[in-house]
């Protein structure tokens, strides 16, 4: 489903470049639930952004479905993003002046779905997240967990094949975190690939597979549980 081959990426710095991804090889199958772990600055977000076509890369190849994603134009990128991918962010990134319903419906606007249908589908999706009674609320009127549910509903509205979540529970307390993880597991159970960046071991433990990044390379990749053992760079070490 997703295949990265020899991906390298560096950021331009004042005195040269900062290599962040240093040769990533990675296959993720349809329907997997994957956690990407690693200490702060190890390149987790960068990797997720490459996977999400939000950011380019310098070297290597990326195939999504059967399509080569290297050298996509900005417009093509936007189209693949809107057709295949859904995003969930740590800080929710709901648009402040739009209601929950309007936020959820927004991706359909960019797919040129008619207004009535947009609202209907957004309402349904909010219902699945148990949020239909909050449809008319502005983000500022919602709790953290509720905001993340709206954000997940927004990510799911376009029926993506992959959900990419960057620290989706990073801003939530542990009870709410588990509720959100529960939602993401249900999403995964419906056949959607879920990729979660996290630095919390118990979040990673709820995924099928954990990939550990260190300094821009994958140092561990395996079934969850296998990697949760406390190592020198313990997963429990806060960063």
């Amino acid at each position, binding site marked *: 489903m997703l295949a990265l081959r020899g991906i390298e990426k560096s950021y331009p710095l004042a005195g040269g470049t900062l290599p962040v991804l240093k040769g990533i090889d990675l296959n993720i199958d349809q329907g997997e639930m994957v956690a990407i772990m690693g200490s702060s600055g190890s390149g987790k977000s960068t990797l997720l952004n490459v996977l999400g076509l*939000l950011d*380019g890369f310098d070297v290597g190849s990326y195939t999504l479905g059967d399509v080569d994603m290297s050298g996509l134009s900005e*417009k093509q990128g936007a189209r693949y993003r809107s057709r295949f991918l859904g995003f969930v962010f740590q800080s929710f*990134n709901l648009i*402040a002046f739009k209601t929950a319903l309007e936020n959820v419906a927004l991706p359909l606007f960019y797919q040129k779905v008619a207004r009535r249908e947009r609202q209907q589908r957004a309402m349904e999706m909010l219902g699945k997240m148990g949020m239909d009674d909050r449809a008319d609320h502005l983000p500022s009127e919602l709790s953290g967990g509720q905001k993340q549910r709206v954000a997940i509903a927004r990510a799911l509205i376009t029926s993506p094949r992959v959900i990419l979540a960057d620290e989706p529970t990073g801003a939530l307390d542990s009870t709410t975190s588990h509720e959100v993880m529960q939602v993401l597991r249900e999403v995964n159970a419906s056949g959607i690939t879920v990729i979660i960046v996290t630095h919390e071991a118990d979040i990673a433990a709820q995924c099928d597979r954990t990939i550990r990044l260190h300094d821009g390379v994958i140092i561990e990749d395996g079934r969850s549980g296998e990697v949760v053992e406390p190592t020198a760079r313990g997963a429990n070490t806060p960063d």
Partner: protein
Amino acid sequence: MFNRETWIEIAHTVTANPLRTALTGLSVGLGIFILVVMQGLGFGLQNGVQQDFGDEARNTVWVRTGTTTLPFRGRQPNRRVQMRNEDEQRITEQVIDAPAWSGRRMMWGSTVGYQSEQGNYPIVGVEPDFDDLELLPLMGGRWLHADDLAKESKVCVVGENLLDELFKQDEAIGAFVTLNGITFRVVGHFSKNGRWGNSMVYIPLTTMQRVFTGSDEVDQMVLSTGDLDLEGSTAMVEAVDGDLRLRHSVHPDDQRAVRVRDNQEEYAMFERIFTGIRLFIWIIGGFTLLAGAIGVANIMAIVVKERTVEIGVRKALGATSGSILSLIVIEAISLTLISGALGLIAGVATLNVVAPYAQHDYFANPEVNLRVTLTALVVLVVAGAISGLVPALRAVRIRPIEALRYE
């Protein structure tokens, strides 16, 4: 691009931050408002002065005399210089070659009676050419003829105020009136634009000299310069001025004793003043527009900066750069357009409220130059569009993830 959804989006963002919207609106609206009002006032001033000139033909020279202020050739100052028929005759026959002229003498506050009505009006003695020199539109009957002057006829032409005040419903032409007790026949009546010109009673100068003033004195002379250019009329002025000073022993620097005023030159002077005023208004207007444009640019830059994260989110949700660009640019355009239009309306309304209170000898009918104002509005809207476009282009060029990292 201009579909309903875009407008709903724009309505959303515009109302999301009312202060920001108000500030943008204010900078644009105020700019247009100031421009409109200044244009209007400038125009009113020009109108007023032009109207004042409208009383007299532009190609005339007025000659007046007064008392001397400087001693000259053994004569003491404070001597009264009086023009006489012989002066007029000499000047028009020997000194200059004027196509038309008239002597003029006025008796203020004379009593004019018709049947049981009476009132005070100025009586003015003039010659047949005078109606062309002073631009007196005849509304009925006839003007004074050369024959009236030759025969010293007791006939008069009255302004339309007398029709209202003395004759009421009666037919004025052919009616007999008493001027300071002496009976005259009304042969015509005229109507001028505004003011006291309409209260005048014109009679032949010769009749006035014989019946009322008993002398050959002339108070003013009006000379036509025909189609002479400014240079030619100036030469005429100098010739008349020089002749009168010579004949009446007036010092060349005496400004009061002999005054020869060229309307054409005066008009040219006003023209220069108005060119200056117009230029001034343009410069002020230009700066106002510039300030408005800078205000819009500034606010749009802040708007886009504030919305960088939002732009990133939208891109992550499938928005293309084009859709985001058009959103911001249309927003900038509609903001400037609406507030500019409001400023325009406010400016026009202000002028309309002020206009009735601002009628003055040198101020009339302040008007809005719509072409200039619309140009200004377009300039501001374009400035708004560009000033939205520049930061928006920068913002959409940021990859979505950098925008998301923004906070």
